[in-house]
């Protein structure tokens, strides 16, 4: 849910990175955090387990610049990917303005991608959203590994509408900002429509 403050001339939007466990959601955020100028970002908060698995969410605020005199702030969140944290995933989607689905390109993770995508649709619906109507991007991550599925096969299985698809290697940053730009553009375009 966008928050528009005319008094301080700010637009605040919420973007959520979704996907199966270990697909690279936190790595996306970490790369954005590491490569953004200190003035444009806040702290990266990670609520993680002792073994560095996301327990509740990761969060970082990012300021992209000014549009028509309004500062645009994006609040980036990840969800915990492990199946049993479903209640937390549902909570984090509340008030979302745009979603990035991070798919793991490894052959053995395809079932997990499909299950997580169904889970995203269900949890969006539980919050009153429709995946077909909200700003949405599909990222095919881990394209540097050897046991990966060709992009067209992944797209055939995972693409839900005409959403932009980006190939990525989040650990080195490939495709990370293209993905963010893609979803942020859709969120701002949606704002224009409303």
């Amino acid at each position, binding site marked *: 849910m966008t928050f528009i403050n*005319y008094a301080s001339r700010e637009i605040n939007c*919420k973007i959520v990175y979704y996907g199966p466990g270990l697909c690279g959601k936190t790595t996306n955020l970490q790369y954005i955090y590491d490569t953004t100028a200190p003035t444009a970002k806040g702290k990266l908060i990670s609520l993680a387990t002792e073994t560095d698995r996301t327990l509740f969410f990761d969060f970082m*605020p990012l300021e992209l610049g000014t*549009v*028509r005199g309004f500062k645009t702030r994006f609040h980036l969140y990840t969800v915990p990917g492990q199946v049993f944290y479903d*209640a937390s995933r549902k*909570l984090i989607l509340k*008030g979302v303005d745009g979603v990035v689905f991070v798919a793991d390109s490894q052959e053995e993770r395809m079932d997990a991608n499909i299950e997580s995508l169904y889970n995203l649709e269900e949890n969006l619906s539980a919050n009153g959203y429709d995946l077909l109507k909200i700003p949405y991007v599909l990222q095919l991550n881990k394209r540097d590994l050897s046991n990966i599925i060709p992009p067209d096969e992944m797209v055939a299985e995972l693409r839900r509408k005409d959403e932009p698809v980006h190939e990525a290697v989040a650990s080195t940053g490939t495709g990370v900002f293209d993905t963010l730009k893609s979803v942020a*553009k859709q969120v701002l375009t949606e704002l224009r429509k*409303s």
Partner: protein
Amino acid sequence: MTDAPIIMHEEQFQQLRHILNKLRLDSFSRVVFLVDKNGQQIAAQGDIGDLDTTSLASLAAGNVAATGGMARLIGEKEFPTLSHEGERESIHICIIGRVLLVVVFDDRSSLGLIKLRVKQASRDLSAVFDEIARLAEQRKGSEESLFAEITDDDIDSLFN
């Protein structure tokens, strides 16, 4: 259904700041701020210093969301207030409709006093948020959105 965006205008923003400031003084608290339930900070007053209110806002919303989830599991609608007491600093959170009132205080105040003052401020804050909702409804369709003028170039320029 999802909530409509919160659209804040100058007059209501100043009213909120005034209520928060009064609450801070009356309750002898350190910082008082308002956050929407999705974690976005709406307004803050007090001795903020190097306190990271953006992160605090996000975590307060996560905290309320998680305890709200627990409440529903045991058959409650929500837990309307939450308090966390530390050795020196404490936090009190109160749910007011779709927003959270977060008060950070130390041993210059007490939880009892905070709760009393928060209760009084809640009524005033509710009235302002009712007015914000009423204005949003009234202006719906009658006012050309400022953002309708945003061009593709404006959006592209953010990423260059």
